[in-house]
């Protein structure tokens, strides 16, 4: 995890040890990791509720223009103030949560699914497929992640579809690398040999016996990857290459407000706070899960 963003190195499990199942660990949750996990889930729940219930909790819509009330500072009428077109920043921030959360989750899900599939196939099959995948990963790692994403998005033309495409092209490699290593760790363990010897179909061996034992690490990684996906989506939109106006999105709102940062700070300030809070929620969940996974297997 040195390219999408800086991150804690993936915890290495001793080889040959079967992975743990989350359901077996949940009842034993205790101590600080539980607090971290619960706090993160609580924060995320509030943000999700704000996103879903945005029409209920906001007095204004995110796109209603009101030239008479432009650049108003935060007040009782406009909790977060208004922008240069008189649009309510609170409403725009709340509605943005929808698009930003969807982007973060779908980017991570895509990378997780593609990466896990490729990683299992490469680790299981070995040989030519494996070395081809590894070479592709080497080359992809040779570019700064953000540079590659910006280039692909830029060349295809700005927009959500380009962003998805660019990130799917690049970010699966982190999952593939992780899963491949896990698969190779347990590939020759006795229970895998037993499963193979019992005349099950390959699909069953991979699905029932291999996958449950290699899935925990990429799942834990995915929970911390959400932070980077969130920041990535916002960064690309900040640069004007992601979500296009008038759809409200945090990164783009910060860009819109940047010309007013000296006097009308609230335009860029509140969407940034929203990003930080969401990222902290993701981080707390990720840290909690990582600790549980480490203790459960250690």
């Amino acid at each position: 995890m040195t390219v999408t963003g800086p991150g804690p190195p993936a915890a290495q499990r001793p080889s040959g040890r079967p992975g743990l199942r989350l359901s077996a660990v949940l009842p034993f949750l205790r101590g600080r990791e539980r607090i971290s996990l619960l706090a993160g889930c609580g924060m995320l729940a509030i943000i999700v509720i704000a996103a879903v219930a945005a029409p209920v909790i906001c007095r204004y819509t995110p796109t209603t223009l009101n030239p008479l009330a432009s650049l108003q500072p935060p007040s009782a009428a406009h909790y977060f103030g208004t922008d240069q077109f008189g649009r309510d920043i609170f409403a725009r921030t709340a509605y943005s949560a929808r698009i930003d959360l969807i982007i973060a989750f779908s980017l991570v899900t895509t990378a997780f699914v593609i990466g896990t599939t490729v990683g299992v196939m490469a680790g299981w099959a070995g040989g030519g497929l494996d070395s081809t995948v590894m070479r592709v990963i080497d080359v992809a790692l040779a570019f700064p992640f953000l540079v590659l994403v910006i280039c692909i998005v830029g060349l295809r033309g700005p927009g959500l579809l380009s962003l998805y495409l660019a990130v799917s092209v690049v970010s699966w490699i982190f999952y593939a690398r992780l899963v491949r290593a896990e698969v190779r760790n347990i590939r020759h363990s006795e229970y895998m040999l037993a499963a193979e010897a019992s005349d099950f179909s390959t699909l069953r061996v991979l699905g029932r016996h291999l996958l449950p034992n290699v899935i925990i690490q990429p799942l834990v990684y995915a929970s911390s990857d959400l932070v980077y996906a969130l920041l990535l989506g916002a960064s690309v939109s900040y640069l004007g290459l992601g979500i296009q106006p008038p759809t409200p999105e945090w990164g783009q709102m910060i860009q819109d407000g940047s010309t007013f940062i000296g006097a009308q700070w609230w335009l860029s300030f509140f969407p940034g706070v929203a990003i930080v809070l969401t990222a902290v929620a993701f981080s707390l969940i990720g840290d909690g899960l990582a600790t549980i996974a480490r203790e459960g297997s250690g």
Partner: protein
Amino acid sequence: MRRLVLRRLIQALPVLFGITLVTFAMVHLVPGDPARALAGQRATPQILASIRHQLGIDRPLLQQYWHFVANIGRGQLGYSFLLHQPTDTLLAARLPTTLFLVGYGVMIAVVLGVPLAMISATHKEGWLDHSIKGSLVVGLGLPSFWIGLLLIAFLALRLRWFPVGGAGSGFPGELWHLFLPALTLALSFLAVLVRSLRASLIDVLDADYVSLAVLKGITRRRVYVRHVLRNALIPAVTIVGLNLSYLLGASVVVESVFSVDGIGNTLVNAVLSRDYQLVQGIALVFGVLVLMITLAVDVTQAALSPRNELA
């Protein structure tokens, strides 16, 4: 040692080939006809054909690739339609700014990060450690472009301590002008640095030679500075090395926020104005840069730890 360097160089060759392949393929990702994108909708077929010929895209793909690689070999990276300059002269002028910014940012991160990690590790599980760890969770989620804007608003516009953008002249001017961008870059990297450094410091603090130093009755301060810090700086170098690729990526956003004249900001402008050859050239430079850094980190690590006889 020489054998190791040689082996790493040979291992890098296929990656280098891959980098040229990816950057070559980039321009072919462009939907539609690049000639039409350049000439506009009303261009006559003759004009389109001449642009295609000029770009070389009327030739077979393999020949185009060969031409592309041969040009790189000659140091020619194409021509920027946006800035009306050959890409190579443009990059030669702007790459040093980016490298200076990243180096400056790393320096600030280390100056801030090493003491923080030291405090955290020596007060393990105490309230200081917990508050530092808590701030790191927040630090990890800070968008660099937002922090950059807040720094501009507060330190540049309100207090007028620093200039808003641009690059100063001379070394002191550059240090002063690039301080806020470098600080922003440092803050986006600080959380990772302190986290990893804290872990390695705790390992060092548990080491036998530290216990021996304490038993010998050496003062606490001396043990920390002479024995702990010196041994913890090696992992710090490794962490920085491993994250340089990330830092180069982050510098793109930071340069854009502060309008720094580096290759990152140039990349964003090139992408926004669809200057394909410039995008291609910059992507290539970034790829080769990261490859070289990875090589350097590998070799330095091997040189620093005689225990890992890799060669």
